[in-house]
Structure formats: C-alpha cells, structure tokens
C-alpha cells in the first residue's frame, strides 16, 4: 500500500504549474509497481486545494493507477469541492473518507 501525504507538497496547493511539478516529483520518487498497489491520498494538513493543482496531480494519479484509490482526511472545504469536481470531470466515483 502506498500512502501519499499531500501536505508534503505544501499546505496551499494551487496553480497548474505547481501541481505538474508535484506530479513530476512524485513520479521520480515512486516505482511503477507502487501504482499497482492500493493508494491512499491523505489530505490532512492541506490548508487550500485548488482545482488546477488537483487536476494536474490527482487526475494524473487517477490515469496511472491500477489499484484502488482512497482519499482520507477530507474535512477541508476546498479539498472536498475539488474532489467532487474531479469526480464530475472524470465520471468516476472516488472513495472519499472524512
């Protein structure tokens, strides 16, 4: 199982540029095999998540994952709004835990 702590990329997660940068950093530090395992994205510690950052990082993650994906610690209003919007865009039901 792979756990991704979003707050390690920053507390205020905004802009496509920074989201893309975060995704490239993630790819370089994780093996392809880790994307075949179940992945948990821990949103704890994030102060703001914008759609653009989420679209670059989380949409890329969704496209590469082969195992199940769960989001945790999603009490932040902008985290929830971004995840709900990504569900709409991708037409996928995400597992979102409080």
């Amino acid at each position: 199982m792979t756990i991704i702590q979003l707050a390690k990329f920053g507390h205020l997660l905004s802009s496509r540029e920074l989201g893309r940068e975060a995704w490239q950093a993630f790819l370089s530090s994780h093996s392809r095999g880790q994307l075949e395992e179940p992945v948990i994205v821990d949103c704890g510690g994030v102060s703001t998540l914008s759609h653009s950052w989420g679209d670059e990082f989380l949409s890329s993650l969704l496209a590469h994952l082969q195992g199940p994906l769960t989001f945790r610690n999603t009490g932040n209003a902008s985290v929830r709004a971004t995840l709900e919007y990504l569900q709409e865009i991708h037409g996928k039901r995400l597992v979102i835990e409080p």
Partner: protein
Amino acid sequence: MQNMGENGMLSISEAADFLGISRQTLRRWDKAGTLRPSYISPGKHRYYRQSELRKFASDLFSRANNWALASSEAIPAADDAYCPTSSVFQARLATLETALQKIPDLQKEYRFSLVVAVVAEIGDNAFAHNLGQWPDIPGVFFAYDTNRRQVVVADRGVGILATLRQVRPSLPDHREALRVAFTERLSGRSPENRGGGLKFVRKIISQNNFSLFVQSGDARLRLSGGDPALRISSADTPLRGTLALIEFSPS
C-alpha cells in the same frame, strides 16, 4: 505640525502603516495622482486625513478598475497590489489565506480555503493565458480587504474572448466568451488537456454565500451564492483584460 494627530491627520509614516504599504509607495501615488496628501506643510511634509485614507482603502474595486483601464504610462511603476509574476501572486495568496483564517465564520471546515481556491483559479488563469502575450504590463493587480470581505484581481492581458478564440474561432463576442468560460471545460491552451477552472469557480460561488463580478471586453458577468445562473450583460466601458471582484458574506 504637532496638532495634526488631533485633527485626524497622519504623517506619511503613519499613513503608510494605516494602509499597510511603504512610504515610497505613498510618494509614488502622490506623483501619479493615485492618492494625493490632504495637506503639504511648508517644510514639504505630506499629511493624510484618516477619513480619506479609509475611503481610499475601502474602494479596492475602483483601484483595480483604474489599474486595468489606465494607459500604461499612467500606471505607477510599483504598487503594493501589483504582482508582476506568478510567484509573487502565489506569495500574496498565502498572505490572503493567513488573513482569512482569522475570520471566525470562515474557520469551520476551513471555509476560508474556498475563497482562496476561487482567487487562485482566477489569478492563475491570468498568468497561464497571457504567458508570452501580455500587451503591455505583465501580471495582476491583486488586493483584498478582509473587513469589507472583498478580493479584487485584475489583469491587462488579452481578455477571455481572445484566449478562447484560439481554440474556438467562431466565438462571436465577449458575452458568449464569458458564458463558455464559465460553463464549458474548454482550454484556451489546446492541445494541453486543461480548462474547467472557471466552472469550478462557478460551482463554489453558487454553493456558498459568495458573489462574483467579472468583466472582460465589453461584457460583464455576475454570479451569486445560492443561484448557479450566470447574469451576463454589456459594460459601458470596455476593458481589454479581465477584472474580477469576489465578495464573501458571512455564512
């Protein structure tokens, strides 16, 4: 001038502290006519009436509008609200976030983050869609007043119509461009797979007690909390770039 304080007049240092800007900025604003002192002493010291400073600070929208509309020569070389690069904008966004975190009704479930996310999308759009195309002054005017619960973001870029015509040349006018920007997932930077940021903004505004005003070209859009309908109308004075006012009422 010892009685100045008693008369509600502030020295330039006190006025700078009052507005949260530098004395140099006040001097530039004086030269540019943006904000004149109320009184200049025989010794050439500037004094500002507190009531006038309060009025000036409260009218963020006019300042942003003037910045977006002015001829490039008339714009002060530096304004504390001016973010020439995306990095400066990001840094000020973090400052806004810190200020919003102190507002009690925005603390529950981190509601302040919704305001920050909206401002982030609008500001990031300005930088992403004008990169390499700024007609004169790059960057955005970004200011906020947490007491009046307002944020303004303005740019002097090419505007939403010109951006979207790069991927949809048939767009007839600014009104239709605004409608498309807020209702369709269409990227002005094809072939990149992006877009949708302003749809996200619409969703947040309409689901919360926020409101949004946007002008680009000769079209203006209003969106209010509790109502996803876009009210698009014509503006009297066209604006080449984009001007946005975000207001966040108490829940």
